[in-house]
């Protein structure tokens, strides 16, 4: 994230934290939809949702980023994201306590996570920026989903 260029980001809140993801990942913003709990699943991807006939895992970034859990409110939204890995596209849904805005940010304004004093696991954070007077955290979605997918696969093997 060090190259100096502008990116479109979507900012949202998880608890008291302000997060940002590249807007290009975003496919839909939904209100809370009926969810189907998955038995014996971890706390990260606990449920499935139906997005117009497509079953999508619903995940909670709070678990990966160690953000305290809070109950759903009227402002809670489901962000349906398309994560691209080369030609491969994976659709996932993440919970957001409140969606704020789509805005432009300069990558030069995004810094590294401080090695000391950061409340979030540094391996899951791409960087921290400052926007409208507040810190904005950029979660490393690829790393988070890769790590938790691998963990799920191990759990499945253990269960089997």
């Amino acid at each position, binding site marked *: 994230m060090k190259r100096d260029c502008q990116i*479109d980001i979507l900012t949202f809140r998880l608890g008291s934290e302000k997060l940002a993801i590249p807007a290009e990942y975003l496919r839909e913003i939904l209100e809370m939809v009926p969810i189907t709990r998955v038995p014996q699943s971890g706390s990260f991807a606990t449920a499935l949702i139906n997005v117009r006939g497509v079953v999508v895992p619903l995940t909670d970034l709070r678990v990966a980023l160690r953000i305290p859990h809070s109950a759903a409110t009227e402002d809670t939204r489901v962000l349906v994201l398309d994560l691209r890995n080369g030609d491969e596209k994976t659709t996932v849904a993440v919970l957001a306590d409140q969606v704020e805005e789509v805005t432009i940010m300069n990558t030069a304004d995004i810094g590294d996570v401080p090695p000391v004093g950061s409340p979030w696991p540094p391996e899951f954070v791409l960087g921290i920026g400052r926007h409208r007077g507040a810190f904005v955290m950029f979660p490393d979605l690829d790393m988070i989903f890769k790590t938790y997918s691998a963990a799920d696969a191990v759990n499945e093997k253990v269960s089997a």
Partner: protein
Amino acid sequence: MTLQTSAPKGFFRSLSSKIIALQALTFVAMIVVGVAGLFGMERILDRMETIFADRIVPVQQLKEINDLYVSESRIIVDAVWAGEISWQDASTIVDRKQARIEELWGAYLLTYLTPEEVILKDAVAANKGAADRALEQLATLIETENRGIVRDYMRESFYIAIDPIYQSLGDLTQYQLGEADRQTVAGQTIARQTQIVISVISLLVILTSLVIVWVFTNRMKRALASAVRLAEGVANGDLAKPSINEAMTKSATCCRF
């Protein structure tokens, strides 16, 4: 006394002529290297400008169009529900967003489109009508100021209408990024070729100059050694006429090299 010399006739007779010729050769070679470098740099610059104007700018435009369809409308509705903006303002903002989409799409259509891109662009254009109608419908429903109707519309219909253009805009953006990558690689190839051409010409110039200097100095050294030998003969009392003539000829030859 007649000087007899075996030195070449014409321009290359004198030492200064040869040095000037060597310098001129080096100078011309350096100009060739400079022109080749300049030509290569201009081609690379052209390539970079093309990538920026025909690929990077369109990617930004397409991404913004996508954001306007996918995210902004939803955020406007949320802002109305949260009381951050009025229903009238929301309707006006949706209208403004529609105008912005048209502006961006028009600007995108003015960029250079490859044949493959035209196919992808046509797919976007085919889906754009439904997406535009969805935005118009949203603006109309916002004007009713009825939260229930807007909520139902957003839940049940809005993204169904938006999804096709989201998909086709994604394909078009991916194509742009792939094309930008290909053109960047082509630009890097030109840069490498230019580097090779400049390096080869420079090496040839250096080698040629070294060979010429070596030939000149060798011939000068031979002539000087011969002149010294004859001078020593004269110093030792050998005043035979051929020796003197030869000494003068060698000196003259030496000066010419």
